[in-house]
């Protein structure tokens, strides 16, 4: 008897637990789609995710492809070499819709293959800074006006006194230039905003009568934090995650520009840096503009998503 009723009980619990959430999500989604900006952001993001997952489907060549010679290991003629970087060419003398760089690699191909790097850095750094910032903000807010809060806030205060980019430069210089370190560095400097904002939100949530009501009902601190505060804070955390991702991608490009990047990787930031390194800023706009636009569009996509979500999760509008 017991097993049957137990499983039924569990099933009911699951249903009871998830039904309202699913409904909430549906409603949220319906409201999200009313934001044109958010939908555009999502579309851009999906395109880049597809690029990252299946680059070979979207790119005409492998990254190793070179103009005129393809994958052959032969040398260019002087004439061919002089024509590089080559403006967009559609099958004559080769196919490179956005032209090539000075090494003869197709710009469009590189663009597609670099999407992975940008998304990886964006998500990893965003997640990491949320993972540090959100819990600290929650703790700081929930124990507001105690020594715990005070300590965290003093740390944040000091960190705000640091010039971020120089700090990153030094950090990456110490730890070695590779993607992981860049992500770590970005996360270390960007959790501050999350922490402060989540703290503020928690502080105001803490004063709500329903928190007091839960206390009167006998709820423990953990229950209050996880059942009553967290669900109200998490949507906001996602908003910050999106913004952090955007900042991380731009920052990584900036570091690459300063010469602090893993130059073996494919990355939009490095592509721009190469334009300068080869001295083609004025002569090869087809090389300079696309990677910049790619960075802009993915960062903008993250911002679009973030701000649309902020609107959706704004409790005043629910």
């Amino acid at each position: 008897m017991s097993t049957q009723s137990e499983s039924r009980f569990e099933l009911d619990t699951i249903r009871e637990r998830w039904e309202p959430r699913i409904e909430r999500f549906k409603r949220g989604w319906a409201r999200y789609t009313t934001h044109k900006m958010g939908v555009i952001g999502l579309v851009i993001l999906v395109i880049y995710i597809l690029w990252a997952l299946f680059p070979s489907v979207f790119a005409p060549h492998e990254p190793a492809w070179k103009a005129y010679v393809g994958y052959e290991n032969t040398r260019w003629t002087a004439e061919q070499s002089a024509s590089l970087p080559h403006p967009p060419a559609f099958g004559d003398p080769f196919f490179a819709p956005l032209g090539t760089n000075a090494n003869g690699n197709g710009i469009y191909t590189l663009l597609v293959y670099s999407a992975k790097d940008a998304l990886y850095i964006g998500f990893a750094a965003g997640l990491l800074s949320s993972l540090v910032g959100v819990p600290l903000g929650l703790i700081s807010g929930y124990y507001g006006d105690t020594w715990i809060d005070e300590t965290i806030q003093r740390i944040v205060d000091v960190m705000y006194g640091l010039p971020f980019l120089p700090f990153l430069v030094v950090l990456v210089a110490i730890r070695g230039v590779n993607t992981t370190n860049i992500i770590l560095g970005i996360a270390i400097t960007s959790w501050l905003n999350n922490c402060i904002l989540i703290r503020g939100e928690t502080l105001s949530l803490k004063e709500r009568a329903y928190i007091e009501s839960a206390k009167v009902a006998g709820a423990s601190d953990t229950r209050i934090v996880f059942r009553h505060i967290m669900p109200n804070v998490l949507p906001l955390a996602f908003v910050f995650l999106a913004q952090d991702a955007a900042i991380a991608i731009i920052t990584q490009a900036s570091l690459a520009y300063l010469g602090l990047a893993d130059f073996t990787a494919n990355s939009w930031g490095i592509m721009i840096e190469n334009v300068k390194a080869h001295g083609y800023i004025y002569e090869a706009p087809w090389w300079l503009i696309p990677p910049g636009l790619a960075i802009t569009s993915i960062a903008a996509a993250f911002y679009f998503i973030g701000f649309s979500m902020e609107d959706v999760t704004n409790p005043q509008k629910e």
Partner: protein
Amino acid sequence: MASDDPEPIVEVQNVSKLFGTTQGVTDRLLGRDPTPVRAVDGVDLTINEGDIMGIAGESGCGKTTLGKLLVKLHEATHGTIEFDGKDISDLSKTERNEFRQRVQMIFQDPFESLNPRMTVFQSVMEPLKINDIGAGYQDRRDRVKQVLNDVGLAPAEAYLDEFPKELSGGERQRVAIARALIVNPDFIVCDEPVSMLDVSIRAGVLNLMKELQDEYGLTYVFISHDLSLIRYMCDRTAIMYLGNVIEQGPTSEVVMNPKHPYTEALFDAVPEIDPEAERHRANVTGEVPDPRNPPAGCRFHPRCSNIIPPEGWAGSQEAFRRVFQFKSRVLQDDLDPEEATENAASESTDAILERGLALELPEEHSLDAEASRSIDPSVLDLPADAERTLREAAERLLEGDFEAAKAEVEDEFESICERENPAVREAGTQVTACHLYEEEAGEPVAPGVSD
């Protein structure tokens, strides 16, 4: 409604609650001194089983803080609160769990007191879950349905999966009541439970609360600023002012036969629905002072119409009240000689006197000679030496020597009301904290004995 042999269920003894006593590290480093707010200050209160105890007062008087102390949302800074004979600040884990089940609270704002991300079912069931009551999901669901029916949300199924924002204010407050009732409590603190509700809905919730009291055998504390609601709901009433309970007793007595001048003013100020009713305006001056820096002695004395003249005061009480105001204004730099003499016809010290002795009162309480914030001192029954002192002070003010003016009045016109905080004394069927009743009552009494 009170039972014949009242058993105290809650006893509050000399309880105080101070806010803002803690300091941050930087504050300490920088040597900032905290100025605590004495939200509740030395309150004694006994609540009998089966009673509805009303706590009334203006905003900032500490009534909500007192309510939260009773349910242990705040810890008292001083004093003890006993629930069913046990000090609630000193409970074992099991006792604390029991306390949490037996004592519940209903909050003011039904739009805030329910988690917007939880359904009605989840909200009402939460206390069961926390206290591990009920055998399994189905049992709990049944209990929830029953309580929802009890609070008038029928059929319960229709409400179970609703979110708070889909409900009206009245419905939300009923859900909040259901949430409090589901653990079968004995004692519920209701903090302004209907103040956010519309009038036509309000009566329904109030009546429901009365019905449930019988059904569930409840004791209520009913906190409200609305005295007519207190009158409607409560058996006994305590009036609070600046953290003190200044009067308590049976509701009808407190309302119809108030002892403390503040209580009297408070009830005078309530407008009447009957347009023909003859109503008095409240005979008080000024506004509630800053609770960070409450007046010495009786908290109410700066506004009181019945302030007691010192022994040997030759004039009338009316005159003393004005003289005392004059003194306070001088001491607080509130009397600006330039303003006073600017558009006055008479000589300047007269002008200052005329202005400083005037009280800002509703027409029915001000003297005939008192108009547009000035009064002719000669109509007051002012002893000659008092007038001399006042003139001296006015003279100093004119000279711009404010310190000397203060010195002039500082040690004069001392009332017992500003010196001593009155003890709680019996007066009629009530107990009250006012120096007026010192002589007739004799010894201070313990609260709650007066029944």
